[in-house]
C-alpha cells in the first residue's frame, strides 16, 4: 500500500515533514481527539444521576435538598459529617473519643491485610474508624450524637466502633443528655471476628443502664443498617425511626435469596416494609428528621 502510494504521488520528492502531514490524511494521529483535559474539568462532579429515577441532577441542587432527589425523593447516602451538620444547630459541635484506633487483634489477612484496609479507610475518610461522637445542640437542647460512617469499611463495627458508641452512651447517662445514634452499617466487622460480636453485648448492656436512668435514646436507621448493628443498638431506641427506602435487616437479602431459592419481593427489608410489619416507629424523610427528633425529645426530656 505504502509502496503504491509512494509510487503514484512520487512521495520521495516531498520533504519528510510534508510527507508526515500527507500521511495524516489516512492515519489518525494519536491523541488528536482527546478532549478530556479541558472539558472534563469543567463538568466533572457537577451533575449526579439518580439511581432510582435516572434523573440528571445538578449537584448543588441535590446538596441544597439535603441529598434527596428532588424528583423521586430517593435519599442518597450521606457521610457522618453531613449528618451532624444536618442535625446539630449551626453545624456547631464538639467531637469526642475520635482518637481510638483498632489494634487488628486477629492480625486478619484475606485477599488484603486488614491493617492496610484500615489505613486506606483512614486516609480516605480522615477518620480513625467508622463513627463520629459529637456533643452539640438540637434546637437548643444539649444532645449527644453518634453518627456512623458507611464509607469506612462499610460502616462495620469492630472494637473501636463498639467502644466509641458505648462511651457515647455512658456520657449520655452521666450528663443526662439525650442520645441519638445514626446507624449506617453493614454489621459487625468480620476482620475482628468474635471481638466484633462482643461489641453487641457491650453496647446493649450500656443501653440497659441508659434505659434505667430514663435518658431518651433515639435510634435513626439509615441506608443501610444490617447485621449485628440492627441486632443490637439500632433496634433498642425508645424510638426507632428510619429514613425512607433504607435497607434494614439482620440476614442479608442475597443470603436469604440463595437459601430460599426465590426472588425476594420488591421493597423487602426496606423502611416501609419494616414499618408495615411493626418494626419501626416511623419513617421520617430527611428534611423532617430534625424537627421530628426535636418533637420527640420535647416529649421525653424532663
Amino acid at each position, binding site marked *: 500500500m505504502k509502496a503504491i502510494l509512494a509510487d503514484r504521488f512520487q512521495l520521495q520528492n516531498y520533504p519528510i515533514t510534508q510527507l508526515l502531514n500527507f500521511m495524516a490524511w489516512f492515519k489518525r494521529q494519536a491523541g488528536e481527539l482527546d478532549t478530556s483535559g479541558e472539558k472534563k474539568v469543567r463538568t466533572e462532579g457537577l451533575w449526579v444521576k439518580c439511581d432510582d429515577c435516572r434523573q440528571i441532577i445538578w449537584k448543588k441542587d441535590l446538596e441544597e435538598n439535603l441529598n434527596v432527589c428532588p424528583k423521586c425523593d430517593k435519599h442518597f447516602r450521606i457521610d457522618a459529617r453531613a449528618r451532624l451538620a444536618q442535625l446539630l444547630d449551626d453545624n456547631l459541635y464538639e467531637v469526642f473519643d475520635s*482518637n481510638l*484506633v483498632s489494634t487488628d487483634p*486477629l492480625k486478619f489477612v484475606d485477599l488484603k491485610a486488614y491493617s492496610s484496609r484500615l489505613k486506606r479507610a483512614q486516609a480516605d475518610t480522615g477518620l480513625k474508624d467508622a463513627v463520629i461522637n459529637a456533643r452539640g445542640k438540637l434546637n437548643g437542647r444539649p444532645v449527644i450524637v453518634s453518627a456512623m460512617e458507611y464509607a469506612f469499611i462499610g460502616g462495620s463495627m469492630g472494637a473501636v466502633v463498639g*467502644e466509641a458508641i458505648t462511651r457515647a452512651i455512658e456520657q449520655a447517662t452521666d450528663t443526662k443528655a439525650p442520645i441519638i445514634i445514626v446507624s449506617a452499617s453493614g454489621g459487625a466487622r*468480620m476482620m475482628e471476628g*468474635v471481638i466484633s460480636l462482643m461489641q453487641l453485648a457491650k453496647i446493649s*448492656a*450500656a443501653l440497659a443502664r441508659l434505659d434505667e436512668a430514663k435518658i431518651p435514646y433515639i435510634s435513626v436507621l439509615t441506608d443501610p443498617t444490617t447485621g449485628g448493628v440492627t441486632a443490637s443498638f439500632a433496634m433498642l431506641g425508645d424510638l426507632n425511626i428510619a429514613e425512607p427506602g433504607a435497607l434494614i435487616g*439482620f440476614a442479608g437479602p442475597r443470603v436469604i435469596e440463595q437459601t430460599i431459592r426465590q426472588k425476594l419481593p420488591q421493597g423487602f427489608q426496606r423502611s416501609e416494609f419494616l414499618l408495615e410489619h411493626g418494626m419501626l416507629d416511623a419513617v421520617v424523610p430527611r428534611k423532617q428528621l430534625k424537627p421530628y427528633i426535636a418533637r420527640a425529645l420535647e416529649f421525653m426530656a424532663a
Partner: protein
Amino acid sequence: MRPSTHRSPRAQAAAAPAVANAKLVVASAEFLLSMVETRWSARNGDNSTMESGLRAQQELERIEQQIAKLEAVTPDEGTRHQIEELHARVHALREQVSAHLGAWEKTELARHPQRPHTLDYVERIFTDWSEIHGDRGFGDDPAMVCGMARFHGEQVVVLGTQKERDMKQKVYRNFGLPNPEGYRKALRVMKIAEKFSRPIFTFVDVTGANPGVGAEERGQAEAIARNLREMARLRVPIITAITGEGGSGGALAIAVADRVLMMENAIYSVISPEGCASIMWRDAAKKELAAQALRITASDLSELGCIDDIVPEPEGGAHVDHEAAAALLDAALSKHFAELRKLPSGELVASRYNKFRHMAQFLRVEP
C-alpha cells in the same frame, strides 16, 4: 461377637483358627496404625495439618473398632499384650492429633451429626425437666427449647437451641435455627426465672442468622437485640455452655451470661467460615482459610478473653461418648454454679456488666 462364659467343645475347636485370625487382624491393625503414624509425623505446613488431622482421627477410629472386635473373641496372652500396646499407641496419637486440630476440623467436629445436642445434655445433667412453650405473641418455636428443671436438686431454668439427627425432626426444629419467637420465648422464660429467683442455664448450638423471610418480617434483629439488653440486667445467675456452633447474633442472644463456658471442640464466631470466605475471598471454598483467620476455637476465644472456661471433651470428641461428655460438662457447670450462687444479686449484675464492658477492648488511644 460376644465373649461367652460357657464354652462348648465345638467353640473350643473353633478357637484355634480364631486365634490365627486374630493374629492376622492385629498385624493388619498394627500396619495401618504405623501408616497413620508416619503420615502424621511426615505432615508439614499448616495446610496439610488441617487436612490430615481429621483423616487421621477417622482412621484411628476405624483401627480402634477393629481392635474392639478382636478383644471380644478373647485371643491368647501374646495377642492380648499386642492389643494393649496398640491401644496405647492409638491413644497417644489421638492426643497429638487433637492438640493440632485446625480450626476447620474443629468446625466439622462442632457440627458432627452425632454430637450431643441440648436435649441430650438436659436428659443427662438435669432432672424433672418440664418444657415451657410459646412466646405469647406469635407461636412456639421448636428450634428453641425452654423449661423448668432441677440441677443437682436445685430448681433452675434451662433453655437452648436444639438440633436434631433425623430428617423429619431436623425439619421440625428448623435445623436448630430459631425464629424471632424462639428468642422471645427464651426471654419470657428467663423473666420467669428472674421473678422466682431461679438460676438460668443456657445451651448454645446454632449455625447463625435465620435466613428466612418470616424471621425478617417478625424482626429477628429486634428480638436478639432485646435479649442482649435484658440479659445484661437479669438479677439471677446465668451460665452458658457453647456446646457446638456458636453462630453470631443468634448465639449471643442467649449467651450474655455470668459464665460462658465453651466445649473443647465447639466454635464461636461472628460469621460462619463459609460466609466469611464467600465475602472476603469471594470463594466459599476458602472456608479452611477463613476458619483459621477468624479465630473461632475454644482456645482462641479464651486467649481473646471472650469466654470464661473451656470444658474438656472425651477423647476423640463429644460425639464419641455422650455420657462422658455430659459428665464433664456437668462438672464444669457445677463448679461455676457453686461460685456464682455465693454472690448477692446486685453484685452479680454489676460484675456481669463489668465483664462485658471490658471485654474485647482491642484498641489504643492515639494522641
